[in-house]
């Protein structure tokens, strides 16, 4: 599994953005992960607790927004989502499908705390 590499990358991104605004602490990190991008399981949280220690990201909560694969049936135009394995069009059973979503894999936003006035 490549969760450690992924977790390190998330930490690097969060620290960089937090430092840009001189944040004192990062409390939350929002990740968007499409079903077709990369498989990332709960061990990210486990690694996170180890590697974020002694940084301003320590104890930050990771929020995973998992985006299903979105498909469009070429034969009947039906749009539908699949969470696990690929499946045919639920309306006409066609396997003639276009992938229209599910490839997201990014840090969407972070919540930081800062002394004094709003940033």
């Amino acid at each position: 599994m490549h969760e450690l590499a992924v977790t390190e990358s998330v930490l690097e991104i969060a620290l960089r953005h937090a430092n840009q605004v001189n944040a004192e602490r990062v409390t939350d990190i929002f990740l968007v992960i499409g079903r077709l991008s990369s498989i990332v399981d709960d061990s990210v949280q486990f690694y996170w607790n180890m590697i974020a220690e002694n940084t301003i990201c320590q104890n930050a909560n990771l929020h995973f927004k998992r985006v299903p694969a979105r498909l469009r049936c070429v034969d009947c135009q039906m749009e539908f989502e699949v969470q696990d394995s690929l499946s045919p069009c639920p309306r006409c059973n066609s396997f003639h499908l276009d992938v229209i979503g599910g490839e997201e894999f990014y840090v969407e936003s972070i919540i930081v705390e800062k002394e004094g006035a709003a940033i």
Partner: protein
Amino acid sequence: MTSTRIPVVEKILDANDQVAQQNRAWFDRHRTFAINVMASPGAGKTTFILKTLELLSAKYRMAVIEGDTAPVTIDSDKVSALGLPVVQINTGGDCHLDAVMLHAGLQSLPLEGIDVVFIENVGNLICPAAFKLGSHRNLLVASTPEGDDKPYKYPNMYRGIDVLIINKMDLMPYLDFNMAYFQQGVEILNPGLRTFPVSAKTGEGMSAWINWLDEVIQQHRQQ
């Protein structure tokens, strides 16, 4: 203390992708065509690469980069035995090569005069799909004993490749591999994907692949 939400929208593997671009530039500077060969363990990556080396050795100077999870040189030794340059990258247990590991490995592979380099990735259908290396083509070796449902189960891998080899065609009579079902899955994920059914063992189907590769390399050089 104030709490503020900061928009980031940054791809998680951006850092890897940037190093991958550097690798690509390095290959291009040396006019070396690089192919990332992915597959599950035992699909026949090494056998397929060796066969390809054999069939193209009269025309191109080639080298191999072997990604291995452990310092076992079984695959590298087979390439060395052909008298070709080979570098082994030990991932230290990691399930894939990433761009940084390849970057390091390239330091000990002089590319001067090398026309084509094959990168044998770690046997795995999940992780290598996520980490770009900077290769000019991403190739997957599927094999018939793995079963015909793999595109459906590993969509990210099938989405990200430029060419597909279906290896171990010689075993078809003994398997219940449904080629139509397999190719239907591939077509959903990667419409029009170039696909070559072969047997790296018997050599069946290899000439179509070799002709295609030769053409792609020639086109690439003209750019």
